[in-house]
């Protein structure tokens, strides 16, 4: 039972575009331990969604995936044919998408779509599968689960549809669930419910979970480990505590600075922003991807690729050639981050 449920080494995605070759995901590596949660955070376009699609081998047709190693529970995924891969999808690894309003087929009932997910992979009867679907709909907090099976997606609200999507992902008791911004399209009040649900179910079924999000507040409360992505690369990775208390990469610190903290951030006070724009990912890029926006960047940052360095604590690493406590305001940021993580 030892060993991580998912190992990813040197994962890259390339997409040919008219201007050249786009590198939306570059040399990403991480692992997800059994029954643990890894958060991948970053702003829009940083490659987090494509990373998750690459794991499932659901990339758009023109995108090319390369990796040094990609293994689910020790089993290599890179050598699998599309047919073998489809045997794992929805079975041992499943995915929850960002858009519950459009992710369910409008022409079929909820029950049909749930049952189908199980019967593709298991030799169960239709009624057994329906029983499991009902049980899971109850698990995800839907009242009158039996009757819901006969409903069509358009008869459900966004929050309910996302609950259906979660139930669908759990139909075959997967080892790993990838949730790609599962709450972004939902009302704020529903967001918290859905996240707690995900977290509860993840613990109950001891499933590995990759939670892709740009909401750092969510990460602080629900995740064991955090990988921060910027412009196609992981720039910092560590436990949630390490990332929030001792952020080392200037980008991570900038991100944390952008969050208002109730009771600490004064009304009318300026929230942090990160100056500049995300670099184009077309063509080869040398040096640190964040250099153009980094307040501490030096000439050396731009000249050579930046390798990972280990942080003070084990399991913490970051891509920055400068020391972790660089910069005059590092202490202030750490204090704010403390305030954020305390309530849990």
């Amino acid at each position, binding site marked *: 039972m030892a060993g991580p449920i998912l190992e990813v080494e040197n994962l890259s995605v390339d997409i040919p575009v008219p201007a050249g070759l786009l590198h939306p995901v570059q040399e990403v590596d991480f692992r997800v331990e059994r029954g643990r949660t890894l958060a991948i955070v970053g702003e829009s376009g940083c490659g987090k969604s494509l990373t998750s699609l690459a794991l499932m081998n659901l990339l758009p047709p023109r995108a090319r995936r390369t990796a040094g190693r990609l293994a689910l529970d020790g089993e290599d995924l890179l050598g699998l044919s599309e047919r073998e891969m*489809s045997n794992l999808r929805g079975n041992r690894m499943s995915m929850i*998408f960002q858009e519950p309003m459009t992710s369910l087929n409008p*022409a079929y009932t909820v029950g049909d779509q749930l049952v189908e997910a199980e019967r*593709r992979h298991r030799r169960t009867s239709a009624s057994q599968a329906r029983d499991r679907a009902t049980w899971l709909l109850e698990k995800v907090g839907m009242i009158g689960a039996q009757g819901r099976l006969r409903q069509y997606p*358009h008869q459900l609200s966004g929050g309910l549809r996302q609950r259906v999507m979660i139930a*669908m992902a759990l139909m075959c008791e997967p080892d790993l669930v990838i949730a790609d911004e599962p709450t972004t399209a939902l009302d704020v009040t529903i967001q918290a419910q859905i996240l707690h649900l995900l977290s509860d179910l993840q613990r109950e079924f001891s499933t590995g979970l990759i939670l892709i999000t740009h909401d750092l507040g969510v990460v602080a409360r629900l995740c064991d480990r955090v990988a921060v992505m910027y412009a196609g690369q992981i720039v910092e990775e560590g436990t949630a505590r390490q990332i929030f208390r001792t952020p080392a990469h200037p980008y991570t610190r900038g991100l944390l600075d952008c969050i208002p903290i109730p009771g600490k951030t004064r009304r009318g006070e300026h929230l942090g922003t990160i100056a500049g724009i995300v670099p184009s990912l077309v063509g080869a890029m040398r040096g640190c991807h964040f250099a153009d926006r980094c307040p501490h960047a030096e000439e050396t940052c731009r000249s050579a690729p930046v390798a990972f360095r280990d942080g003070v604590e084990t399991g913490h690493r970051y891509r920055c050639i400068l020391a972790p406590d660089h910069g005059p305001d590092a202490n202030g940021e750490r204090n704010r981050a403390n305030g954020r993580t305390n309530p849990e």
Partner: protein
Amino acid sequence: MLAYLLKRLGVAILVALTVSLITFSMIYLSGDPAVALAGESATEEDIENIRRFYGYDRPILIQYLDWLARAVQGDFGQSHYLREPVARIIFERLPTTMWLGFLALTFALTLSVPLGVLAAIRPNSLVDRAALTIAVVGQAMPSFWFALTLMLWLGIYWRLLPITGTASWANFVMPAVALGYYVTPAVMRLTRAGMLEVLAADYIRTARAKGLRPMRVLFKHALRNAIIPVVSLAAVQFGFMLGGSIVIETIFAINGLGFLAWESIQRADLPMMQAIVLVLSVFYIVLTFLADMLNAWLDPRIRVV
């Protein structure tokens, strides 16, 4: 679902009534029907007799209601030319036209839907280009010209198929192809466009994320959604085909409703023309209604009134 059905049915009946009113007023479009019937050398007295004989002296509303009441019961009056009940002649000819229409639509759908799907799976591929060529040629070619070309090559030069008549199934091949080809481009392009749109939808990605096999994703999850506009279009096109069958039946000398319509126009046989227009319109209305029902079955969102 029942509420939706009743609503569509109500609309269909209203449309049918409107069509019947327009059809009825056709008699008066070309002036006084009694004068037209009586001929050039008729006396005032003859015209008056004819007017009374056919009931043209009554108020128009009464004439319409009387005509409608009879039509609903299947009585369209006597043909002015053939001196036989219109209904009997029409129902003799109707099966031939229906059969031709059915064959033409079957040909059109079996050609255009699979080609549209293939073109959408591999956009800009060889199949897509071939399908586009077929569509453009079909769109550009008038059906009477295509019919004559078929006749010339398949019928006369190569002697593969009989040219005219309705003696065997072989007689229907060329007319059905000529008539159906006319419908193919629109259906094919709409299928392709619909499939392209649906294949990019989030729920297709969900289906793949469940590990479903490509064929199941394509036929269960994609085609059902993509085919909805195609069903509506096919019903409309079938209506056009009934009109187009006038040309095709005349070219191939097929004794159907279209041929009868053409003959009746030449003979100025008003009751016959009225009846043909009404029957074809009602068919069209029924088809549209069936297409609505089929779509409601395909897409549950339509069922919400």
